[in-house]
């Protein structure tokens, strides 16, 4: 792919990338913006290179996810070393930001709360497939799991989500 076309492609996919970054950062907006900015800089400065083995979107999403994970790991390490003697906050459950839930519409709020009771892998798969209209195969590549595992988690997650939504009666 022509490198000069990269900024344009990134800009085109920016809203979706932001949605994915937001997702990877448990809906913490500031964190998501920082992760996204770091990702863009990595790509534009050549630290992360697109090798063409997958689609640009799949690769970009994988880079965003990895950047978010690196950030989380760094924070965890810092917490382990320095916050030992301080009252450290445990990892916030999904979704952590009450503002996000409060500002969402009723339908989105019900969805976010229902997703909170699924496993992280199931959540990620459902998000990639339904939010970003990806195939399970593409999602499995981003999450670095086998296709079989991804299919199983996707089916289980979907079943569980349906059940919760039916129980809570979240209307659109």
């Amino acid at each position, binding site marked *: 792919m022509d490198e000069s076309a990269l900024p344009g492609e990134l*800009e085109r996919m*920016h809203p979706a990338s932001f949605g994915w970054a937001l997702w990877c950062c448990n809906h913490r907006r500031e964190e998501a*913006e920082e992760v996204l900015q*770091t990702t863009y*800089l990595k790509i534009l400065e050549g630290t992360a290179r697109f090798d063409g083995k997958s689609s640009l979107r799949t690769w970009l999403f994988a880079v965003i996810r990895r950047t978010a994970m690196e950030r989380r790991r760094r924070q965890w390490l810092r917490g382990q070393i320095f916050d030992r003697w301080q009252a450290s906050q445990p990892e916030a459950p999904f979704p952590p930001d009450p503002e996000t839930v409060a500002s*969402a519409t009723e339908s989105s709020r019900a*969805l976010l709360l229902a997703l909170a009771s699924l496993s992280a892998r199931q959540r990620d798969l459902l998000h990639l497939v339904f*939010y970003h209209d990806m195939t399970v195969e593409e999602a499995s590549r981003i999450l670095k799991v086998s296709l079989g595992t991804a299919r199983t988690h996707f089916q289980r997650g979907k079943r569980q*989500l349906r059940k919760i939504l039916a129980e809570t009666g979240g209307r*659109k």
Partner: protein
Amino acid sequence: MNREDHDIRDRFAALRQEEAAQAPEFEQLLRRAPRPRPEYPRILIAATLCLALSFAAILGLRPAFQRRHSAPGGTALSITAWTPPTDFLLDTPGSELLRTVPVIGVGLKVESFPKPELNHRKVARNALP
């Protein structure tokens, strides 16, 4: 895709629209200066300083320690100059006789030699069986 899948998809689509509306401008995000990294806590600075000071102290004290434990003049003692502490045991009484050449006409003075000391312990007669 069944009706329930459509329901889930619609919910996700609604969420996507809400979040896309909140997304910052691409250019603005790119131009924004990277957020400064959080300052390292004081404990890290203190630990680094301690480590540096200990290292410097070790480096500074090492030459002095070596000087103190080396031979005078800064050179190591030659092995040929060394004598064992039990060397005097080899100097037996009368060994001078073996080292001197006798001269005709001059007699050896017996007095010049030290009388051997009789260190036999006196044993009490009544102690014997």
